[in-house]
């Protein structure tokens, strides 16, 4: 088991390095840097001025070296500007050095310096952490709503395969997987929050939920994300439940005269919940997608909203920070789901 986890961690590390390098490469392509120079410096810069601007800030050196600096395994770039004052990666405003304090040699992600956001004018790490907190609140309520609902639907549908209850619940879950967040969100807002229909039960935006979560401002975003994920988990639960219900030990219990209710709750449920656990864990990357859409639609300024802002405004270091976090979230959930699957299912022991 320890070896298995160790090997998975190794692959995970390699994947993280590859992915962050790809993001680093794509965000640091020349047109992006040119745009950065023009937005930071002057919109009417000539090509030579752009080159000089980039050169004076260390952007023209080889990409691998700069990636190393960003990670924090290579010493930060240093140089001298036109006035003769020393400049460098480790002297940038995001580090908030004291007057006269000597800058560190290494300053990268590993040292806790994630860069400085050009849009929000704040250190990337601070932004990412606060936004993650806001998204965490959203995700918590999504999970609270989605997981029990999905499991109940799946178990009710799967316990009597082919019954009318099964057919109708399966159709509901198919319909919910067919409704992406931007469709269900739009429909929910139009029905429950617009003046055209007139119900106005909830708010159409969740901006106020950042300070104070209430039923009125948080219901719609939570329901929107939960709906899309729910159908998939419910179908997986149903599939696993129908499989368990045909097992020998269930038949034995039935022949013994155990009541149907007891069979479902005591014998089938435990075994039927192994597969959905993995699925719920693997849903995280999808949920991340949903979070981006819903936060944009409802103007909830969390992690997904930050991703859109960073990507839309060419905020290179913030986008890098955001992608590091999202990639790590995806990989960690994959790892947890693998370990959990082995742990929960005694029949599977890795060779």
């Amino acid at each position, binding site marked *: 088991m320890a070896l298995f986890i160790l090997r998975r961690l190794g*692959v995970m590390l390699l*994947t993280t390095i*590859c*992915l962050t390098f*790809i*993001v680093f490469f*794509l*965000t640091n*392509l*020349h*047109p*992006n840097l*040119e*745009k950065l120079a023009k937005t930071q410096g002057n919109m009417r810069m000539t090509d030579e001025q752009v080159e000089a601007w980039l050169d004076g800030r260390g952007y023209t050196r080889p990409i691998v070296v700069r990636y190393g600096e960003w990670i924090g395994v290579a010493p930060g770039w240093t140089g001298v500007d036109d006035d003769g004052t020393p400049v460098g990666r480790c002297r940038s405003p995001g580090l908030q050095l004291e007057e006269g304090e000597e800058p560190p040699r290494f300053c990268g992600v590993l040292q806790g310096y994630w860069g400085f956001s050009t849009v929000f004018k704040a250190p990337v790490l601070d932004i990412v952490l606060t936004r993650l907190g806001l998204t965490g609140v959203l995700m918590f309520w999504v999970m609270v709503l989605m997981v029990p609902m999905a499991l109940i639907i799946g178990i009710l549908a799967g316990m009597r395969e082919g019954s009318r209850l099964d057919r109708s619940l*399966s*159709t509901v879950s*198919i*319909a919910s*997987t*067919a*409704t*992406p967040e*931007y*469709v269900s969100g*739009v*429909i929910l*807002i*139009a029905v429950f*929050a*617009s*003046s*055209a*229909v007139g119900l106005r039960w909830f708010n*159409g935006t969740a901006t106020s939920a950042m300070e104070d979560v209430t039923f009125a401002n948080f219901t719609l975003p939570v329901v929107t994300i939960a709906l899309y994920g729910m159908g998939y988990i419910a179908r997986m639960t149903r599939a696993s439940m129908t499989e368990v219900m045909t097992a020998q030990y269930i038949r034995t219990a039935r022949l013994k005269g155990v009541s149907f209710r007891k069979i479902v709750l005591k014998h089938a449920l435990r075994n039927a919940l192994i597969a959905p656990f993995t699925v719920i864990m693997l849903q995280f*990357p999808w949920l*991340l*997608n949903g979070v*981006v*859409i819903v936060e*944009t*639609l409802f103007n909830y300024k969390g992690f*997904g909203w930050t*991703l*859109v802002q960073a*990507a*839309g405004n*060419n905020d290179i270091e913030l*986008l890098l920070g*955001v*992608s590091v976090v*999202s*990639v790590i979230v*995806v*990989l960690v959930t*994959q790892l947890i789901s693998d370990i959990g699957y082995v742990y929960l299912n005694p029949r599977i022991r890795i060779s």
Partner: protein
Amino acid sequence: MEELSWGAVFAQIFAQFTPVWIGIVVVFVVSIYYKSRLGLYGKLFDSNIGMIGFALVLFWIFTALFADQIVTHDPLAQVSGMKNAIPGSPAPEGTEGGSHYLLGGDNLARDVFSRMVAGSTVVMQIAPLATLFAFMVGITLGLPAAFYGGTLDTILSFVANLILAFPVILLFYLLVTPEIVQTGLPSYMAAGLFVFPLIFLWVLLNSRFYTQPTKQKLYLSGVVLIGGLLYLSLISQDRTPLNFWPDALDLFDIPGGILIVFVSVVFVNSPTVYRIVRGIALDVKTRDYVSAAQTRGEGPWYTMLWEILPNARGPLIVDFCLRIGYTTILLGTLGFFGLGLPPESPDWGTTINDGRRLLSIYPHPAIVPAVALMSLVLGLNLLADGLREESLRD
């Protein structure tokens, strides 16, 4: 002119869709009549869910085909006075096309109904084709990975997992922004990804007709000539770094942005298809008929493409339907974030994005494409469910 009531609006919409209704009825009557001879497709008509799904999908296929007859107005034309008009509003005198905006006007005074119908053409052109390309990439890489195993499998699976670990929206933002398009990266990716269908067809025919040189030469030269011409016309685009092919031989130019959207959707879908194909092939590989083919002395590609692949078709067809739906959702996501497609494009995602700003006052411009997208994806999912049920019954 008077405003139409809801009943009249629906009656007129129903009438506008006449060619679609005729098409659906014809297909259903013919298919049910010849049901017993049509294999899996015929069996679909035994399942209610499958039939409903198929009808929904057919509805959108015919809507896309007959879009020019169904639209009441030019989907791009702006008519003054029709800004955010409510459904059933009469168009001013002298407007070209129909007398009313059946489903109202959007914030640029364009007809919502016509845009929704025109949008179906964009979606139905890109989604199935992109899914098909993703399947060809996935099959061409997944079969050898499962068949040979070893290092090839490890490397390919690692790359597939790498792409899958990316949040899709981040990937889209990284690939589809104008700055990246300027560097030509999507064009090079297109050049790389679109080779796979060619390789697939080449290997497919080559392995089959290896022993019949005349046929082999005929088919292979056909693939190279027709496929190659299509390939070169496809990847060589004006205003991108990859523009080398002479215009005289350039059969078609895909309008701005669509190629890039197409490439990124294929790119996102391929690793999942790869994983599915690899999984099924690993299972089928152990069957007796595969060993029989190998004992007979068939080459590895013949075994893969003519022994393993046909026996994996059931789950693959089901997944194909599901994946078209997922691709439609992805396309909508791209449109929703205003990526790739031009802002005036009538596709559903872009229209939803346009309409969402005034959602709480004028919901109709966003609701109409949203319901359209949902019904298409729902149809595809129901169809897949019906196919799965019927194929399991054998």
